[in-house]
């Protein structure tokens, strides 16, 4: 079993780094572009990775991340600076990815079924093939289950944090992640991983 520490933004305690960030945030809110760039640098990896995992496509993820930061820039003056910034940005990312996911056609990263057809079941799959199958299993999940399981199992948020980010109850999140884990297990078993 994995033990997870409660992050600072859930406890309300602020480290020195957090206090500095609050100042950067205040400058960005007042229209300082260089302060906003610091925010982008701080969160770009997290946002782009999350978008990529939720959308399954590098190009869509880049478009989504751009949109996330542009929305953040536009609505930063409405952000309540007494609240933690990260969940706000992560929620923005999930919402943008959901919007893009609704509009786009299904993206297939690799022809996973073709790989399976040509593979020897006794031969170990290459890491590239493994990656493609995991991504396919993830993309087959309904959007809400995918968001919950990615935030919990890949991004490492606790159930309570995921519930806050997604705006749902912990019970709902637990139900979503357990269903998603069972589906992933089934999908990987089917592909003999």
């Amino acid at each position, binding site marked *: 079993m994995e033990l997870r520490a409660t992050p600072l933004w859930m406890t309300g305690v602020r480290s020195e780094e957090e206090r500095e960030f609050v100042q950067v945030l205040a400058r960005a809110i007042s229209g300082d572009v260089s302060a906003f760039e610091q925010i982008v640098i701080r969160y770009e990896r997290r946002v782009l990775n999350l978008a990529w995992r939720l959308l399954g496509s590098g190009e869509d993820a*880049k478009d989504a991340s751009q949109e996330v930061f542009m929305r953040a820039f536009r609505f930063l003056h409405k952000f309540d600076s007494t609240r933690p910034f990260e969940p706000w940005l992560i929620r923005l990312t999930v919402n943008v990815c959901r919007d893009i996911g609704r509009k786009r056609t299904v993206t297939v990263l690799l022809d996973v079924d073709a790989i399976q057809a040509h593979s020897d079941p006794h031969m170990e799959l290459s890491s590239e093939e493994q990656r493609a199958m995991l991504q396919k299993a993830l993309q087959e999940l309904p959007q809400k289950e995918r968001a919950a399981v990615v935030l919990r199992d890949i991004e490492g948020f606790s159930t309570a944090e995921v519930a806050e980010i997604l705006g749902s109850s912990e019970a709902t999140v637990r139900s979503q992640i357990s269903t998603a884990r069972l589906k992933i297990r089934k999908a990987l078993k089917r592909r003999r991983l």
Partner: protein
Amino acid sequence: MNCKHSEKDLALYVEGDLPEAKAKEVDVHLPACTACRQVVDELSGSQALFKSIRQETVSVAELADLRVRVMERVAVQRPKLLWGRWVYALAGAAFVVVIMVGVLAREGHRDEKSLNVVELAPPPPSAQAVVPPAKGESQNPVKVNVKHRARKKVIQPKVYAEPPTPMMVKLQTDDPNIVIYWLFDQNGGS
């Protein structure tokens, strides 16, 4: 699965998401149940693989590309945003000014009306006034509530409140040193 523990519970158990009491029950149950143990093993394996996605991360070049694109768009957007906020502020201020002007104009109009009333109203009446009786009526004086009469006066046209201006006719005789002025009031009396 015929156990009291559902697969959904086991899917939570493998990642420590099951409540403590339930997790202890599963701990006790697992050594005795092959089916549940198998599910837990499979789930642990699939979860380990699934979480390997964590290790895959975007490249530094992709991050730099994203940052450049974002900051370019921010540079374009910023003046629009600032102008947009000013427009809203100015529109708000203009609206307030229009409302204030409207209110002041209305108040001014009211004041003008109330001045007319003061001009037309009779001097402050006593509680009751005595009106002489008309011909054919009883010789006893009639008491009239003055308030009613005052209200009637307010709606009278302004011309009745002003004193009549006398008319003047100037007659020039043959002698330029003699001029006759004839003054008479507008009621016809001279």
